[in-house]
């Protein structure tokens, strides 16, 4: 197997947060020696990502997703463990590394506010030391892919949120990075725009074989883009694997849907009835009991139709995050 593009081992980040105390004396004392409290944002996570993979980071607010991405992008220095991206140590922020990666933060804008994006692109050309021909080719390709030909000529402040994000992405990819860190790239956008950006990321990944690590609150993003997900909670990895097997691992229940010949017979004895409409009934049963309950249903009633469903991925994630921090 070739070297992984991203290699993370026991990566840890502990923030020191100043503690405020009430009172003048405490305030004066704080000037000299600050009292701090440790916040363990990321605790010993390890994973490898291969070339061309698209990996989704899932986790509730404050789980440590953004902190992890920032450590990989060289914006945060790890407290412990180590990370290697493309063979570079991100926190050294070497030119060669910066030229091969990019980070897009959905809630920040990096383009100049008052001028057309096209001028900001020109600036990026100089910053990344691109040759004009390469730059023009890449710029036009991205503009076409995202269909922003008109938008790049308007001052950025006159663009809508979604338009700005598209233009922002063009600016971030002009140097054709091989590693993309995308932190909530679709946050606050409407559904059509989310879809558009999703399609683009998939296309870029395909064309340039780039490795993509992304966080998102929208499951649709992850389902459409990532074969593999890493679930982080309280700074630790709870799950790392195929999206499809996430439900297997974490769903405690399955839903049995039956259509009965004789209509509304009470089925509470079989499990929790979550839905009952006419002759259609949905029952939630513990995963282990699924086949036994189904067999009993078939034996006891005249069943027209029976289905066994995994719970929706959102529900699985929700149940994962409901777990308290492991102390």
């Amino acid at each position: 197997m070739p070297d992984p593009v991203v290699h993370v081992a026991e990566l840890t980040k502990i923030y020191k947060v100043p503690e405020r105390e009430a009172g003048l004396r405490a305030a004066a004392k704080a000037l000299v020696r600050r009292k701090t409290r440790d916040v363990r944002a990321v605790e010993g996570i390890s994973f490898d990502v291969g070339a061309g993979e698209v990996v989704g980071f899932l986790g509730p607010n404050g789980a440590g997703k953004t902190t992890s991405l920032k450590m990989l992008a060289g914006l945060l220095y790890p407290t412990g463990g180590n990370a290697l991206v493309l063979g570079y140590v991100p926190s050294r922020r070497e030119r060669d590394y910066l030229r091969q990666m990019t980070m897009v933060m959905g809630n920040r804008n990096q383009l100049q506010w008052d001028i057309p994006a096209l001028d900001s692109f020109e600036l990026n050309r100089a910053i990344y030391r691109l040759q004009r021909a390469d730059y023009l080719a890449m710029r036009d390709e991205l503009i076409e892919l995202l269909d922003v030909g008109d938008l790049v000529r308007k001052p950025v402040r006159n663009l809508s949120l979604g338009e700005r994000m598209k233009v922002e992405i063009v600016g971030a990819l002009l140097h054709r990075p091989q590693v993309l860190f995308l932190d909530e790239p679709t946050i606050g956008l409407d559904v059509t725009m989310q879809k558009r950006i999703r399609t683009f990321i998939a296309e870029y990944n395909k064309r340039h074989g780039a490795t993509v690590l992304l966080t998102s609150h929208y499951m649709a993003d992850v389902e459409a883009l990532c074969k593999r997900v890493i679930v982080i909670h309280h700074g630790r990895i709870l799950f790392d694997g195929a999206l499809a097997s996430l439900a297997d691992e974490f769903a405690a229940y399955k839903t049995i849907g039956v259509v009965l010949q004789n209509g509304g017979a009470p089925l509470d004895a079989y499990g929790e009835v979550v839905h009952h409409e006419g002759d259609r009934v949905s029952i939630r049963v513990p995963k282990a009991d699924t086949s036994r309950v189904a067999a009993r249903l078939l034996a006891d009633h005249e069943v027209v139709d029976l289905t066994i469903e995994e719970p929706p991925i959102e529900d699985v994630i929700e149940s994962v995050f409901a777990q308290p921090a492991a102390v």
Partner: protein
Amino acid sequence: MNALRVSWLFLKIGVINELQYRVNFFVQLLQSLIQVGTALIMLALVYSHTTELNGWSESELLSLIGVQVLLGGFIHTFIQPNMQRLMEDVQQGTLDYALTKPEDSQLLISVRMVRMWQVVEIVSGLILLFVGLTGVQQSIGVADAVAFGIALLVGGVLVYCFWLVITTGAFWIVRMENVLELFEGIYQTGRWPVTVYPGWLRYSVTFLVPIGFAVTVPAEALTSRLQWQTLVFAVAFGIAVFAFTRWFWHYGLRHYSGASA
């Protein structure tokens, strides 16, 4: 009377809020010391080359600087924070919250904020004023003191009106960040008696931008230069400017509601 109660409540909330940040007191103290120190050095430099400036002795000018610092402290404590907040509100479209409250809009936007620690500046102004006055030859009568009080009040009103008129401009020109620098710059003209300025500038800082007026008139009262006609005129001028400001505020507000609808 409701107006007074509302103002009092806002003041109380503001003070409680500021009490959380007591280190700011020391920061403010240091800043005031630096400000006063620079002013004193400039004063010393000027009077090392002359004995009087346009008829003002060193002590008299010190009292004038005292008045300027005092009034500046008042502005920084009560007026400027409100006006900055107003500008931000217009920019970010959050002014509607204030406008939907059942209270006079001008009153509400004028009393929402208070920067308590700037009071240090008021105190240092008072100290300069008293130190200056002890060096002044003539004694100060009750009439002078009363005239000083009235003139200072008028000065405060004038500065408030000036600020509000300028800030109301934010309804038309949204980006006004640098208006603060503009005001701080012009306010420095108040550190010297208006009479030193050449004619055109004197009229500007008296009527157009009433800074010189607001500082010099109270200082004249204390140094027994003030003629009662000037004081009467000042009061009338203050009332007229206030009336204009109120009209202008409502005019701007109509424009604002019209534009954002």
